[in-house]
């Protein structure tokens, strides 16, 4: 008689949030908040963390950023959680490479009185106080399908070019895309394949080529990853498929500007990463000030907007922005 999954399930998990929130508590100053992105030197995270830094300066607290130089170095990220714990920051904002791997270290941190906010990419709910979500996964998934469907006239084969197969957020969005496609108005659209480019330019390139060779009558591609969409756009713009195969997904305006202008891409979307960092920072400060504890239903104000904490301590940033030839020049990130 050993231990099986069933036995463990019976034990049940522990809830993270404890204590009582005081919405009227004063916002503390002089706090230190450590940002721990999936990877330093990643433009997306740099923009996000800059947003966090700005918010913290505004609130009179200080900012620091640490992180591994590789986006797959999970053990490296764990040791950085440990480093922040040792340095006794007041709160940390973490974008987790792995939902489970950081748990032990994060729990140690929470045990030492450090408030933990995850942003962009979550861990298990019991390993942090709150999660700042870039946009509701449902919104993202559904709007991307809507964007593409309009571009291809609600007809034809489409494919998805994702990042790694394990990317949790990608997978959630893809689930919602599939749900959206069940709507009868998409009855002429067929999702033929989900390909994985592992957030690597060359691999995303070759996956795009493969999709087009396998389905020569492909009408559109959704790539819900900034690396993937960029690589796919670069490939399309240099091939005979330029303008014929529609491409949309998540991308940054700076990355995609050329391709929107040269007609490879009509429209794509993204939330503002700086706003994400900003909210993560403000949530961290609110937690450290005792204004919230991460329980469902608590509310707090950040940058003039009131946010309500949803189920499992999730806070949604809002709707993503759609970029196209008309508005793209007014963004710079």
């Amino acid at each position: 008689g050993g231990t099986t999954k069933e036995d463990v399930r019976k034990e049940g998990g522990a809830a993270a949030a404890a204590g009582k929130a005081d919405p009227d508590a004063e916002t503390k100053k002089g706090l230190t908040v450590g940002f721990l992105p999936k990877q330093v030197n990643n433009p997306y995270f740099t923009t996000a963390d800059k947003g966090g830094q700005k918010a913290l300066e505004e609130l009179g607290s200080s900012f620091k950023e640490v992180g591994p130089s590789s986006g797959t170095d999970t053990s490296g990220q764990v040791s950085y959680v440990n480093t922040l714990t040792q340095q006794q920051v007041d709160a940390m904002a973490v974008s987790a490479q792995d939902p489970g791997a950081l748990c032990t270290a994060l729990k140690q941190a929470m045990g030492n009185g450090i408030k933990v906010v995850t942003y962009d990419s979550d861990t298990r709910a019991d390993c942090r106080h709150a999660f700042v979500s870039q946009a509701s996964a449902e919104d993202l998934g559904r709007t991307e399908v809507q964007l593409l469907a309009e571009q291809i006239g609600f007809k034809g084969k489409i494919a998805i070019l994702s990042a790694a197969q394990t990317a949790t957020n990608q997978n959630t969005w893809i689930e919602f895309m599939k749900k959206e496609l069940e709507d009868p108005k998409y009855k002429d659209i067929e999702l033929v394949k989900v390909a994985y480019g592992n957030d690597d330019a060359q691999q995303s390139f070759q996956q795009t080529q493969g999709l087009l060779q396998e389905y020569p009558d492909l009408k559109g591609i959704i790539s819900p990853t900034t690396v993937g969409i960029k690589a796919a756009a670069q490939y399309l713009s240099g091939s005979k498929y330029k303008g014929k195969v529609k491409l949309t997904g998540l991308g940054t305006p700076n990355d995609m500007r050329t391709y929107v202008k040269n007609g490879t891409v009509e429209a794509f979307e993204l939330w503002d990463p700086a706003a994400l960092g900003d909210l993560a920072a403000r949530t961290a400060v609110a937690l450290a000030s005792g204004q919230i504890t991460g329980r469902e239903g608590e509310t707090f104000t950040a940058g003039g907007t009131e946010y309500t904490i949803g189920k499992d301590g999730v806070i949604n940033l809002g709707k993503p922005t759609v970029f196209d030839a008309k508005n793209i020049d007014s963004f710079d990130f």
Partner: protein
Amino acid sequence: MPESLTRAIRWDTVVGALLIVLLLLSFGFVDGFGNALNLSFLIGNTLPIALIALPMTLLVVSGEIDLSVASTAGLSGAVMGALWNQGMTIEAIIPICLLLGVVCGLVNGLLVTRLGLPSLAVTIGTLAAYRGIAQIVLGSDAVTDFPSQYLDFAAGRVGDTFLPQAFLPFLALLAIAVVTLHATPFGRSLFAVGANEEAARFAGIRVRRQKLLLFTVTGMTASLTGVFWALHYASARYDNATGLELSVVAAVLLGGIDFDGGKGTLGGAIAGVFLLGALQNVMSLKDVSAQSQIVVTGILLVLSVLGPRVARQVSAARAGRRAASGKPPAPARAPTST
């Protein structure tokens, strides 16, 4: 070269000394380094590298290399997750994973010893293959709900001390490895195999069998590491431990193990592993950025080979001077009879 033998011996003591100096300095001057939690994290995070470094050192001494270790670890973690999801008991899963590691190692070993392929090439191939199989087995799942007594063992400490519980079994394995390499006939013959395989064969050493055994043990240790990794980080994913092979290789090289085979000590290799681990820990605490840490690691590696080289030249020059000064005055030329 006589120096090259003594070089290995000297270099591993240098690395050991460096490690001690670093530890002493860090205890004294780095905030947050000396507390039990940090030390346990430091050791816990370094353990996977140290574990794999044990058989890797033996393998490298015998003139081979296994780059597939990280993938084997990932595969065993993935299989562990998949079987766990199937509802098997953890007590049955772990032996299966170890067995799987044996098979992985055996495949490497057979390809190298039977087909005579270079191990570097073979294990680059299996590096991809094993990781790929892991991906097929577990897909995008991340399994986290392993039983807490196992998780606690893999992440927990001995009482209130800084020692992770898993460190004690590691010490036992280390002792076994040291004795095997440096005191048994088997280990001793590995040095001969690494330095001159043909001469070893002529001396009646069963080269192929030994190598096969080493690859198998390496595979098993790698899968043990994979199991430990999944429990330590409470997460079984197909991409667990990606890139670990390079860390192991770097640490082992730093410890003075010669990749041409036939040279090195386990003490040096393990000192190298913990030196790198401790250095990274200290640098993080000191807010040295990840990028600069990479540069420091690189410089350390270059110095680890240039250092002994310079030391050798200095000592050779000194010996030459000594010999020259001890020489009697040149004798008068012997008369030639023709």
